[in-house]
Structures are given as structure tokens and as C-alpha cells.
């Protein structure tokens, strides 16, 4: 189901109350004109699944953190921030999870530019 | 108690070894094995299908002098090879195959770039 950004927490809380207690994955998709974030939730006891989709403007991608609803969202939100550049509001830890680089841009967006390979100290030495 | 496990350990002193003494013995391999590439130059039609299908850009077509003049033939950078066998599957004349030869080594990684002539035979 597609919902507005403002209703995200509300909807997820409602779903959790209905028994969808298990968060499977938060995935981001870059549709070029928009960025959608998908929340896959599951009702383990009744074996049902639900997808919650939020569509965002690529230039204004702030999202509220859903960690208060699903604790499992922690690392997924971090990767979301890292890979899609989506600002997650109300999060404590900001450290990048996967990539230890200081390049710019969000790697999984379609307009990501493949720059020169990240220079390490060693490669600089090898050049010199 | 620990004694039971210890007895099992002592018993296992009798078990046969499962590792092989590598350079002296070699493993028996089935015919499906995918290791070192081999090129049959006379049957290659220079179609370049292997180059296109290779996921790692391992294969590049290079000019190679043959009996019928200079032709484009696959050159393989073994260092980057996944041994996935896609090139073997798409090859229309089955001239590029993966063989059973699994032991190849070099002191310099440049030696892993195999010219078409080196891949033959």
C-alpha cells in the first residue's frame, strides 16, 4: 500500500498492532523522478505479508525513523542513508555502516557518478 | 564426562587421513570440471560472443596471426576469471572450453594474461 510520508509511523504502528510484528526488509528504489522506500512487514503467526511504500521527492528525502516501531530497522535505515542519501530523522548513530569512504553521492541512486577509484595511502605512494 | 570424548579422540587415531599429499597425489576430477581455459584456434570464428558474455571483462579479442591471416581471438586474463563457464556455453563452435587442469601458478601476475597462442593445447 502506498502512503504519505507523514503517515508512515502511524501506519506501521497500526500494522504492528494488527500482528505484523516482524520487519523483513527496508528497501529503497530510485525511480529517477522519485525515490520510493518499501517496508516489508510480516505477521509470523498467520503467515501474512504487507508492503508499505513511501514515495519521496529526490531532492527532499527526509524520512522519520521507524526504529521506535521496529527495532530491526536500525541497520536497514543506516544503509538507506548510506546508499540512497535519505536523511533519517531522529536517529542517534550516524556512522556509515558499509562503506568506509569519503566520496560524495549515494551509490545506489541512478545518477551516481563513477568517479576515480578511492585513493588509499598506498596507491598514492605507488603513483609517486 | 570428558573421558568419553577423550576416548573418541584416541579412537580417531586409527582413522584414515582425508587430506592428500598434494604435489605427489592428485585429485580425481569429473569431466564437468571448470578450470583453465583452452582455445582451439582453427575452429574459432572470431564472433566475440565470449567477450560479450564474460561478466568480469576477463576476455578481450586481440589480433592474432594465424595461417589464414590475422584474426581476432580471445585473450584471457586468468587472474580475473570467475571460472563460471559462460563463455564455454555461448561459444557457437565450442572452441573455447574449460579444462580439468586446476594447477597453474605464476610468480608474476602478468603471466596470468594468456594470449590465444598460450591457451591452445
Amino acid at each position, binding site marked *: 500500500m502506498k502512503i504519505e510520508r507523514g503517515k508512515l509511523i502511524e501506519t506501521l504502528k497500526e500494522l504492528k498492532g494488527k500482528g505484523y510484528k516482524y520487519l*523483513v526488509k527496508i528497501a529503497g*528504489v530510485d525511480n529517477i523522478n522519485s525515490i520510493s522506500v518499501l517496508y516489508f512487514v510480516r505477521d509470523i503467526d498467520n*503467515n501474512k505479508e504487507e508492503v508499505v511504500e513511501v514515495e519521496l521527492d529526490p531532492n527532499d528525502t527526509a524520512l522519520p525513523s521507524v526504529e521506535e516501531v521496529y527495532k*530491526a530497522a536500525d541497520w536497514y535505515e543506516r544503509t538507506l542513508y548510506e546508499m540512497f542519501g535519505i536523511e533519517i530523522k531522529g536517529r542517534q548513530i550516524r556512522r*556509515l555502516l558499509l562503506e*568506509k569512504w569519503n566520496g560524495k553521492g549515494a551509490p545506489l541512486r541512478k545518477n551516481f557518478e563513477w568517479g576515480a577509484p578511492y585513493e588509499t595511502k598506498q596507491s598514492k605512494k605507488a603513483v609517486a | 564426562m570428558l573421558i568419553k*570424548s577423550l576416548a573418541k579422540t584416541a579412537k580417531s587415531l586409527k582413522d584414515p587421513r582425508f587430506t592428500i599429499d598434494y604435489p605427489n597425489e592428485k585429485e580425481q576430477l569429473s569431466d564437468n*570440471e571448470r578450470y583453465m581455459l583452452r582455445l582451439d584456434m582453427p575452429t574459432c570464428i572470431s564472433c566475440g560472443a565470449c567477450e560479450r*558474455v564474460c561478466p568480469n571483462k576477463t576476455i578481450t579479442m586481440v589480433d592474432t596471426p594465424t595461417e589464414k591471416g590475422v584474426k581476432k581471438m580471445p585473450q584471457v586474463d586468468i587472474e580475473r576469471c*570467475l571460472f563460471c563457464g559462460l563463455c564455454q556455453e555461448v561459444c557457437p563452435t565450442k572452441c573455447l572450453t574449460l579444462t580439468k587442469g586446476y594447477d597453474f601458478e605464476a610468480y608474476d601476475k602478468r603471466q596470468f594474461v594468456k594470449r590465444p597462442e598460450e591457451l591452445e593445447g
Partner: protein
Amino acid sequence: MTTKINIGPIHPSTHGVLRLVVELDGDTIVGVEPHIGFLHRGVEKLAENRMYMQNIGYMEKIDYVAPMAYDDAYVAAVEEAMGVEVKERAKYIRTILLELQRIASHLLWLGTMANDLGQFYTLFMWTFRDRDKILRLLQEHAGARMFYLNMRPGGVVRDLPPDFEENTLQVLDYIEKRITEYEHYLESNQVFIERTKGIGVLSREMAIELGATGPVLRGSGVNYDTRSNKPYYAYSELGFRPQVMFAGDSFARYKVRMLEMKESIRMVREAFKKIPEGDAVGMPVRLIMPQAKNKIVTVNRETPRGEAFIYMIADKERPYRLSIRTPSFINLSLINEIAKGSRLADLFAILGSLDLVMADVDL
């Protein structure tokens, strides 16, 4: 006063490149902060830039202990995008191979877990030996020891070799005997029981809340297994029963995996009885090209480490977006919650029982 110690990225029992910053109060753990990403390859981005069949080789490398599981999951996603049905015999062949792969993966885990508990590589070597027998079987079929690439949309790359059934049943008899032996070997050791029972307890509620998967979830008493809840291939015909333990500690997770191995052995035997004759070979590589545009595909698969979930938006030549949920990633994220309050030595018992593969975490 607390001290921070840095475990990894190079450490004997982190199974790869995991860095844990552990905050200690004396010998008690106050907090664990995992730092990951040392093995990050950007599989999702790579997949967007390669054609469908080229990706198979990359998907296998997500989890190098059970490569076939991801091979299968990805090919299943491609199948769905193309609208191809899996041949009846191929379904059984895939089930057999995947279960063999699961046994091989669990055997390796058993060895490394004993190793983490301070056993001097003995059980590790024994399970390695037994795993090798399975790898040889798979090698005979697929043509490689580790990266098989034997799945093709609609079936498998080639039918099983003629003496495969006989060999497999022989190996399974051997392994069943061995597993029982190892179980006695470990459980008759009082120290092993002390070091795993009641260590790293994850309650049922927390397991669901934190999104644990696979044996970790089932070790906490949640009866959820993709093979039974969303049956695929021949699992429903083989009468698969998910293995559940209720204690939620390291020992329960260990026991779940041991029981799973036995269940897998039973299923493979059953599958050989029911396997139909016919064609099992999938489509050739050059034809793999779904024509559908923007078709959304989701696939759930139970890999040895837990539930893998693939969300794919299919495009003409390449996946437009391939999002993969890897089980080790989410299982590692619970380490802080589980390890808090236990002793430093217990941290390794817990890490061992989570069965992490770092390539699977970093994707």
C-alpha cells in the same frame, strides 16, 4: 570504570573481517558495537550493470559457504520475471542439491563453533572432512567445488550423473552416523554444555522484534521456516518439518542446526524415492532475457543461515533494481542485544552460534 577493547578485523574467531568494539566492565560486557563493511562489494549496484545471466556468478559470492542457496534464489527471481516454470524433475534435483548444500554449510558451522569455544581444530577438521564428501558430490554434478553456477531458469545446467543417487545415499549414511557421533562428542563434554546453555539468551519477543532469521529465530521458539510457510520446490511433498527449540540460548541454536541436518538427510532420502523421470535441463544462457519491463518480483528462500529475500524490479536486459536481504546481516545486528551482560569468553560462544559469514553480512 569500563575499558574498550577492539576485537578484529583480524582475529582468530571472527570468521573473516568483522570488527567488534567491546565495552567491558571487568569481565562483563556492557556493549558491543559491530563495525562492518570490510568485505563490501556493492553486489546490488554490480547487478544493475550486468546482464541477467552474468549476475549468477556474483550472487554465489554473497555467501561463500552455501553458494548454491543464493544461486537458486537469484535464478528463481529471474524465472519469475521471465514467467518460466521449473520442470518437475528439476524441482526435485534442486531440493536435493540445496539440502546437501545446507548439510555442508551446517557441518562447517559446527566445526567453527567448536573452534570458537576453544577446541583445538579437531572437530573442525572432522567436519571439514565430512563436508568434503558432500562437496565432491556437488562437484560431480556442477563441475566446481564451491561456485557451482548450476542453476538455469527452468531447471539445472545438466541432469544428475548416473551414479549420483547411490553415492549420495552412501555419503548420507556416513554423515548421519557422524553427526550423531559429534553430538555425543560435544554433549558428553560438561564444559561445552556449561559454555552454551543459558548463554546469549534471545527471547521469543526480542527475536521477532529484532528480526532474527533462520536457526536463530527457530532457536528462540518461533516456528517460522520459509520452507514450510512459503513452500517452494518439492518441500511440501517431502513433508518438511521445521525444527524449533524454545530456550533461545546458544545451545538451542546449536541444537536447531543439528536437528536441521538430520531433517535434511531425511528429506534427501525421501526425495530420491519420489523423484520423477524426465527432462531437467534449464534454458541455455543466451536465451535468458526477460522481456517484461518493470516487473516486480519477490522471492523468499531459506538459506542455511536464514531467510534470504530478493526484491527485484526486472528490466529488459538487466535488473533495474536488485535488493537482497541477507540473513547474516540482520543476525549480526542483534549481537549487542544478546551479548550484553555476559562474559567476554561468552561473546565467542554467541558469535559462533549465530553462524555468520562476513561476505553475507557486507553484501
